C-alpha cells in the first residue's frame, strides 16, 4: 500500500512540475525583459536569451530541467547564474526553522486547548476558546502580522523586521523570528484545535466511553487513555495538513517580515520569470505536501488496529 502511495506521490510531483512550467511560460514577459528592463534593445534581449538558453524551445528547456532534476542537479538560476541548490539550501533551512518554530508552539497549544474544550464542551471556556479560534482563522495573515507588529514592536519587545543571518545563534534566531512564528501560529492553531475538539467530542459519544464513565474513571483519564488514541487518525491528518501549510503558506508572512525564506525566493523568482527556480521551489513545496500526507496516512494506519491488522493478516 505504501509503495502505491509513494508512486502516486511521484506522479503528482511530475504533474505539478508540468503545471508550474506551463504557468510561468504563459505569464507575459520573460526573464530577459524582466532583468534588462524596459530600455533594453532587441539585440541585447536576444543575446541575453541566448546566454541563458531561453532561445531553446520550451519543451527542450523543460526536458533538460527534468533530466538535471533526476540526476539531482537543480541547475542554475537563470537570472544571476548561481546554483539553485545553494540558493535554496539556506532559504529552505530558514523556512523549516520558522515552520518548526511555529509548529512547536501551535501543535501542543491546539491539542491541549482542543482536548480541554472537548472535555468541558458547551462551558464558558469552551465558548471562549471557540470564539477566539474562529476570530484567528478569519483574519488574514498580513493583518495579524501588522497587529502583532503594532503591539509587540510598539512596546519595543520584538523586532518588526525578521532579518536573520546565517551567523546568528539559536536564541537570537528565536528572538528575531518570534513575530512571524506567532503569526503562523495564529493561522494554523484554530484549524487543528477545532478538529481535535470535534474528533474527541465524537469519540466521547461512543458507548465504551459511557461504560468507562459508569465505571467511575476520571474524565482526564478517559480522554487520555480511551478517547485520544482513537482520535489520532483524524487529528494527525489535520496536523499534517497544517504542517505542510506552515512550509508552503508562509509566502505572505515572509514578505511582511522580510524573512529570507523559500516563499520570498519564490516571489522573487516569479517576478523575474526565473522559471527554473520557480520550478525547483514548487517541487520542494509539493514534496512537503506529499510527504506529510504520506506520513499522516501511515500514522493513522498504524494507530488504527483494525486497518493495521487486517492488512497484515491478509
Amino acid at each position, binding site marked *: 500500500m505504501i509503495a502505491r502511495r509513494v508512486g502516486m506521490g511521484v506522479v503528482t510531483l511530475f504533474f505539478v512540475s508540468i503545471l508550474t512550467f506551463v504557468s510561468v511560460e504563459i505569464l507575459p514577459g520573460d526573464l530577459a525583459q524582466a532583468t534588462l528592463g524596459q*530600455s533594453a534593445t532587441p539585440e541585447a534581449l536576444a*543575446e541575453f536569451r541566448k546566454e541563458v538558453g531561453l532561445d531553446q524551445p520550451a519543451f527542450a528547456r523543460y526536458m533538460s530541467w527534468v533530466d538535471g532534476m533526476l540526476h539531482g542537479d537543480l541547475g542554475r538560476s537563470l537570472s544571476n*547564474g548561481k546554483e539553485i541548490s545553494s*540558493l535554496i539550501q539556506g532559504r529552505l533551512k530558514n523556512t523549516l526553522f520558522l515552520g518548526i518554530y511555529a509548529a512547536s508552539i501551535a501543535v501542543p497549544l491546539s491539542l491541549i486547548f482542543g482536548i480541554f474544550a472537548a472535555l468541558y464542551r458547551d462551558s464558558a471556556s469552551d465558548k471562549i476558546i471557540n470564539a477566539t479560534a474562529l476570530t484567528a482563522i478569519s483574519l488574514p495573515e498580513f493583518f495579524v502580522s501588522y497587529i502583532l507588529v503594532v503591539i509587540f514592536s510598539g512596546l519595543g519587545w520584538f523586532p*518588526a*523586521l525578521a532579518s536573520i543571518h546565517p551567523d546568528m545563534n539559536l536564541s537570537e534566531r528565536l528572538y528575531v523570528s518570534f513575530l512571524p512564528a506567532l503569526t503562523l501560529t495564529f493561522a494554523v492553531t484554530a484549524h487543528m484545535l477545532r478538529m481535535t475538539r470535534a474528533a474527541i467530542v465524537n469519540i466521547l459519544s461512543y458507548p465504551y466511553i459511557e461504560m468507562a464513565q459508569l465505571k467511575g474513571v476520571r474524565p482526564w483519564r478517559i480522554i487520555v487513555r480511551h478517547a485520544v488514541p482513537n482520535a489520532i487518525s483524524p487529528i494527525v491528518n489535520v496536523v499534517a495538513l497544517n504542517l505542510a501549510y506552515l512550509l508552503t503558506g508562509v509566502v505572505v508572512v515572509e514578505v*511582511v517580515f*522580510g524573512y529570507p525564506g523559500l516563499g*520570498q525566493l519564490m516571489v522573487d523568482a516569479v517576478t523575474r520569470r526565473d522559471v527554473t527556480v520557480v520550478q525547483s521551489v514548487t517541487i520542494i513545496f509539493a514534496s512537503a505536501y506529499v510527504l506529510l500526507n504520506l506520513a499522516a496516512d501511515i500514522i493513522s494506519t498504524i494507530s488504527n488496529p483494525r486497518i493495521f491488522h487486517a492488512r497484515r493478516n491478509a
Partner: protein
Amino acid sequence: MKNENSGSRAVSGVSRRTLIKTGFAVGGLLALERAGWAAGTSVAPKRGGHFRAGVGGANTGDSLDPSTFTDTFIISLAFAIRDNLVAVGADNNLEAGLAESWETGKNATEWTFKIRRGVRFSNGKSLTTDDVIASIHYHRGEKSKSGAASLLERVKDISAVGDDAVKFTLKFADVDFPFVLTDYHLNILPSADGSVDWKSGAGTGPYKLESFEPGVSAKLSRSAEHWNSAVGFFDSIELIAINDAATRQNALIYGEVDAISKPDLKLISFLERNKDIQIVDVPGRIWHCGIMRTDVAPFDNNDLRLALKYSIDRDQYVKKVLKGYGTIGNDNPLGPAYRFHADDITPREYDTDKVKFHLNKAGYHKEELKLITAELFPGQNSAVELYQQEAEKAGVNIKIETRPTDGFFTDVWLKEPFQWGWWGPRITEDLMLSLTFLSTAPWNDAKFKSPRLDQLINGARAELDEAKRREMYREAQLIISNEGGHIVPANANLVQAVNKKVVVPRDESGKWKISASWEMDGGYFLKRWSFA
C-alpha cells in the same frame, strides 16, 4: 565615540599618504570638499557610525553585473562600491567622478574625458584608461546583453588619448553626452585584457563589499583609501532588502533601519506625524499620464484631446493621488526637475466651459471613451476613478477598464487607444523627448508626429548655446502640451524617509539638496549622507 575617533584618524592618515603620492589630485579634492561645505549644509557631515538602510526593488536574482541593473537596491549598492566617470551632483548638475574634467569640440561629436590619476580599485589595481574603455565597451556592440546598450548606440568609437584620457566619438552631436555616462549601468570596473571583472565586487568607491546575499542584504565597510574625501561618511553599512512598503515603514518607525526608500504614500501620514522621522523629497522626473493615441479616432482630433486635458483637476490629483508629494504637470513630460523646464508657462486648469467648447468643436456627443488602467503605481486605479468623476462633471463619458499589472506593457501599452500610466525618469531632456516624442521613436506611445517637434528635439541636442537651447525646449514643451497625446496632471516627487539622526544635505534655503536622477539621492545616498 571610539568608532568615530578611529574613523577620523584613519581618514586624515589617508589624506596625508595620498598627498605624498599624488599632490595634484588631492589639491583638487580639497577644493571639492570645501565646495561641499560651503554649499550650506546646515550640519556638517561627520564620519562614523553604522548605517542601516531598508531599500526596495531587490530580487534574489540580482547580481553585481551592471548590465542587468534595474532597481534601487542593486543600484545603490553599486554606487557605494564603484564610481562612474561622471556623476549627477546633489544639485542635479554634472559632478566629476573618475573623470576629473571633460571637454568637447565645436560640434559636440567628440568628447575627451581626463581620467583621474592615482585611483585604486579595492583589490589594489590602479585605474587605467583600459579599465574605462573596457567598462563602457562591456555595454556596447552586438554581443552586449546590457540594459544600457540603447543608451550607448550613439557612441561610434572609444579610444585612449595618452595614458590619462579617453575619447568618445559620437554618431551625432550631443551636448548632454556626459550625462549619459552617469547612468547607473556604466560603473567603471577593473579589467584584464579587455574583459571586465564585475564578479569580485572590486571598485573605486568609498565602500568595500563585505558580503552580499541577493534579495536579502549586503554589508559594506569604508575603504581605508579613497580618492574622494568628500564622500563616504559611515564606518559601516547594512543595506537590507525590504520590498514591501508597509514593512519598510515599520522597520523605520521601530528603529530597525535609519532610512527607507519609497514609503507608501497612502500611509505617509503616519510618518509625517512621527517626530523622530523626517520625510526627504525632491521634485522628480517621473510623470503620470493619460496616453491618447493621436493616430486613431476619436483621439486623432486635437479638440477632443484638449477637452480631456481640461477635464482633469490637477490640484486634486497632486493632493489626493500624490498626497502632496508632487508638482502640477502641464501635459508635457518636462516638469520642474528638468533643467529646461519652462516655468513661465502656466499649467492648464480644470475648466468645464473650455471642456464643453472643445467637445462641441470635436463633435463629441457623449460617446463612451474606454480608458484602460492597471495598478502600475500605488493608487493608480483610484486616480483614474477620480479623473473619471471630474470628467463626467464636465460632460465627458469615460468608461474604465481595469487590467492586471502583469503583462500590461506587453498587452496594452503601445496598443490601446486610451490608457493611464506613468513614465520613469530620464536624466536629460533629450533622452526623455527622443525616446517618446520623435516621430521615429519606437516608444512614441501616443503616436504623435510633428515635423517641427522633431526639428526642435534634434536641434536642441546639438545646440551649444544654452539660451538658444532653452528656447527650443520651451517651444517643444508648448507643442507637446497643446497638441500632444498625453494628459500629464502631475510630476511625482522622489520620496524617502529617514531617521532624524541622519544628516541629509540641505541648501541655503533649507531645501533638501539631493539628486533627482533616481530614488535615494540618485542612488548616491550611501556616499553622501551621514550621521549628525
